[in-house]
């Protein structure tokens, strides 16, 4: 099978549980050999999508195609995909060897071949000598590797990963991110990765699928998603963003915060209402007399590498990330260059996000901790 060809297609998938619509006419094409991440908050339908691809769940409507063959109704044990589960779902009554050998044994591969394959897999995931170890006695990272070996020994065309790093601590998570990324490059097979962690999504994927309320909001490379979010939801969900109401004067000219700016966007009607995204790191703080916008610093937080400075401009609180310190109460000017501005069409998310007046770090962290689908 060639790269760039679609290996999996989901067409108009609808799923509801107890009358609640979980997936809403979902359309998604996944190319062969890609590292695709489904990114979204808990309840956005990302895990459901994965379960539909794995075959654990049948959609109420819509088609699922593998290699252009309709797969609806094909049970999970006949699909050419394997899954790494949340918390791995290693079989507690088997040791490492028996866990990895599970798939080939079900397929009645001769025991001699299995031995050879398992040994190979153990070497591949760097767990030689762990054959007889109980899986309950492994560390999180080791369990993760057993799960990978258990899936890959079946030579799946597609590997599905359901928040596989959620249970690990931060340091280990970073290491495993690299490990998984390298693994995918090495194998060249398709990875479909589900996570709620946007940093993880941006750093690992070829393609990121941002999902919300059972729909796809945007599909693109990490850079596209970050630099050219399609609407206020994506802009807010990925990284930090100042999102303001603006008006397009004409191509390359936009007005917001009572000031006309040069921008790189075109194709809007003159006078069209738009949403403006300005990333905190793209704004420069300058002396008031040089600023395009002028405001007062209302809070400064030291973040290690940089300061997060909140500046009040006409009642809208901007967040600016800079390496320079500015004291609370000082008047400062802001300089926003054309390539710092991204213009988006109005959407149902307009006005919901983007102001930092009630900004609190803790709340963001708490909502991530309670994440569990």
């Amino acid at each position: 099978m060639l790269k760039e060809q679609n290996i999996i297609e989901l067409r108009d998938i609808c799923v509801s549980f107890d009358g609640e619509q979980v997936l809403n006419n979902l359309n998604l094409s996944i190319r062969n050999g890609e590292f695709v991440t489904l990114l979204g908050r808990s309840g956005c339908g990302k895990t459901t999508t994965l379960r539909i691809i794995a075959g654990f769940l049948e959609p109420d409507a819509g088609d699922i195609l593998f290699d252009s063959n309709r797969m609806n109704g094909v049970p999970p044990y006949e699909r050419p995909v394997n899954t790494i589960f949340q918390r791995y779902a290693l079989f507690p009554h088997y040791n490492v060897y028996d866990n990895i050998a599970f798939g080939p044994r079900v397929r009645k591969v001769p025991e001699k071949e299995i031995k050879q394959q398992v040994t190979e897999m153990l070497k591949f995931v760097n767990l030689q000598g762990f054959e007889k170890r109980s899986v309950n006695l492994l560390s999180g990272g080791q369990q993760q590797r057993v799960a990978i070996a258990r899936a890959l020994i079946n030579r799946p065309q597609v590997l599905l990963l359901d928040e596989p790093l959620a249970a690990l601590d931060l340091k280990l998570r970073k290491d495993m991110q690299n490990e998984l990324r390298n693994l995918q490059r090495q194998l060249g097979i398709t990875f479909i990765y589900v996570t709620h962690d946007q940093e993880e999504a941006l750093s690992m994927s070829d393609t990121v699928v941002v999902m919300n309320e059972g729909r796809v909001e945007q599909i693109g490379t990490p850079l596209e998603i970050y630099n050219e979010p399609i609407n206020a939801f994506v802009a807010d969900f990925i990284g930090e963003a100042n999102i303001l109401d603006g008006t397009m004067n004409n191509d390359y000219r936009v007005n917001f915060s009572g000031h006309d700016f040069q921008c790189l966007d075109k194709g809007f009607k003159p006078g069209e209402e738009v949403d403006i995204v300005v990333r905190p790191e793209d704004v420069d703080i300058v002396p008031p007399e040089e600023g395009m916008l002028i405001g007062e610093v209302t809070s400064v937080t030291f973040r290690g590498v940089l300061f997060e400075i909140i500046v009040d401009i006409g009642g809208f609180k901007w967040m600016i990330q800079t390496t320079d310190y500015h004291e609370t109460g000082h008047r400062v000017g802001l300089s926003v260059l054309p390539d710092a501005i991204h213009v988006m069409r109005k959407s149902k998310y307009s006005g919901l996000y983007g102001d930092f007046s009630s900004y609190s770090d803790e709340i963001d962290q708490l909502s991530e901790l309670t994440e569990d689908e």
Partner: protein
Amino acid sequence: MKATERILNILIFTFLYAPLLVMVVFSFNASKSTAVLSGFSFYWYKELFASSDTITALQNTLILAVASATIATVLGLIAAVGIFRMRSKPLRNTVMTITDIPMMNPDIVTGVSLMLLFVFIGRLLGLANSLSFITLLIAHITFNLPYAILNILPKLRQTDRNLSYAAMDLGCTPVKAFFKVTMPAIRPGVLAAWLMGFTLSLDDFVISYYTNGASFQTLPLKIFAMTKKTVKPDMYALSSLIFITILVLLILVNILQSKSQKDNNRTLKKE
């Protein structure tokens, strides 16, 4: 406080074990009295093994206990899986309420209600004797079933559902996944279900008393018949033997349990 605790412990354990002590001591009595000691002898133990009645009753009890515990465990396992998969909450609640009935109802009511059913059906079919081994077995399965379900259901709930998905993902059909992965995970519950059914059946007198046929006598029924008249120490001898057997079994189970608990603790610590 310490003194209160000690006195209370001594009182309660004396209270609990006095009748058992009486039983064991008088099983070795040389005379046939169960109130006056007149010397040590194994006479009643010899007497016991000479009586084919007692041996038959013991056999019957074991047959009934093994059969009813096994059938109830299998039925209960199937039912627990079914209830676990039920999507409709009202239906599930109804089934659980019905399941609770035999446990909440006094034994005498359960016994009488089943007997009335059997007598009613027997009359409809024109049978001379509506009670038999079959009715006794049905009754025992019925009162064992709730305990089987309640032992297995929580284990199913505790089992990570992804385990059976993982098995299917790796090529198992749902049925195969159940036996290869779910079953080992819930095995302690299934075992507990069987053991509980076995002991409940072994010990049951009241429900058996109403539902058995004359041809099939279990040990508790025989003991009841014996205690209607003055009891000779042979019954005490029998009870002492049962007691010793149970004591040994319990100690074994306890050792096994504490061992598996240690394993569990080790697993927990790892996590």
